[in-house]
């Protein structure tokens, strides 16, 4: 049986999930879009408040833990909101990409935290190993990939497709390392080196995936990475067994995919063409 507090918290989590779905739905039309976003924000506020209720109810945290939590929250909210409020309208796409990057980073950090919480040398159950490695990989790929996208949109990295000799070979190698890291996580006991290899290879892959893509195609890539982050967050939800993360993450993963397809279609391109274009066929737009 759930305790009374947990029952109430779960019900409010459900309400916040409903807010995201209806909010996203309202964002399809210009008239209701702003209210849709606000409804979704209300749902998010509820979820955060409820999480604090859980935290206080469990109250197993140390004083340092609480202090660090509050400090990180205050700095993060302050920085994010200040940046969002002051940015020029024309600079918004790169800011969204930056927010996407940090979201992926947070999901990967949750994965790393729970992986390291396991005793070293323990065999993981499939129910844990699969979501945790996917969380780490997808989160790290979106983190570095979105940072590159931010740099390209901001003009800090050349908007031209950047390619170099041996790029394909390097890509292939990195993918092999990532597959190896998945196999190590699923089939073997936990080790810090597996974790580090998975993170580093994924960070490199995120860079390699984004850097050859031209600036004109960047919005589609940001949208694709946005959908990736959604999936990483859903995987983090499996890892820590939290359903609001699973619901919101899967929602964004799926909605983001549809949006990516529509954005590519609006540019008369296909997503595969844009990503593959980056990998050396050399026909990236403009």
């Amino acid at each position, binding site marked *: 049986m759930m305790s009374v507090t947990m029952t109430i918290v779960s019900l409010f989590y459900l309400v916040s999930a409903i807010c995201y779905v209806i*909010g*996203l*739905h309202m*964002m*399809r*039309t210009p*008239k209701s*879009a*702003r209210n849709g*976003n606000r409804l979704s924000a209300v749902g*998010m506020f509820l*979820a*955060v408040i409820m999480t*604090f209720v859980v*935290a206080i109810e469990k109250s*197993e*945290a*140390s004083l*340092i*833990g609480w202090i*660090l*939590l509050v*400090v*990180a*929250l205050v*700095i*993060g909210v302050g920085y994010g909101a200040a*940046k969002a409020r002051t940015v020029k309208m024309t600079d*918004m796409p790169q*800011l*969204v990409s*930056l*927010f996407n990057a940090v*979201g992926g*980073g*947070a*999901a990967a*950090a*949750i994965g790393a*935290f*729970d992986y*390291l*919480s396991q005793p070293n040398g323990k065999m993981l159950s499939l*129910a844990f190993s699969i979501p945790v490695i996917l969380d780490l990989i997808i989160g790290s790929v979106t983190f570095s990939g979105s940072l590159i996208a931010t740099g390209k949109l901001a003009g800090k990295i050349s908007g031209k497709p950047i390619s170099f000799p041996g790029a394909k070979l390097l890509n292939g190698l990195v993918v092999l390392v990532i597959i190896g890291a998945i196999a190590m996580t699923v089939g073997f006991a936990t080790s810090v080196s597996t974790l580090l290899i998975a993170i580093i290879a994924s960070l490199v892959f995120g860079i390699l995936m984004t850097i050859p893509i031209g600036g004109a195609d960047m919005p589609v890539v940001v949208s694709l990475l946005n959908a990736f*982050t959604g999936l990483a967050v*859903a995987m*983090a939800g499996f890892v820590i067994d*939290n*359903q609001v993360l*699973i619901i919101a*993450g899967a*929602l964004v*993963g*799926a909605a*983001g*995919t*549809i*949006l990516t397809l*529509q954005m590519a279609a*609006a540019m008369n391109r296909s997503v595969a063409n844009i990503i593959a274009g980056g990998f050396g066929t050399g026909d990236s737009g403009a």
Partner: protein
Amino acid sequence: MSQQLFTNLAIFVLSLLVGFEVISKIPATLHTPMMSGANAIHGVVVVGSILIALEAQTPLFYVIAFIAVLLGAINVAGGYVVTDRMLTMFSKPKTPKNSEKGGDDK
């Protein structure tokens, strides 16, 4: 497969289906705000960050949890505020009754 895992998996799959269905064709002008709005929703990751932060007991875990909360908080707060600002473009002052549809996109 445990009961809990099955429940989570069912929720995951159904949420994916809802995500596919909830957006139908949208006007091109709303692509960026929609992306930004979805970006803010995955800021829910901050909930997970808060939960792990309270389990941390050693310096290494304090550092990881601090990073997780910091990044998640930037995502969620910045995401909603920037989306709201983008959408101010769409909240027009009251116009006289307009019976024609589709006057919104260019």
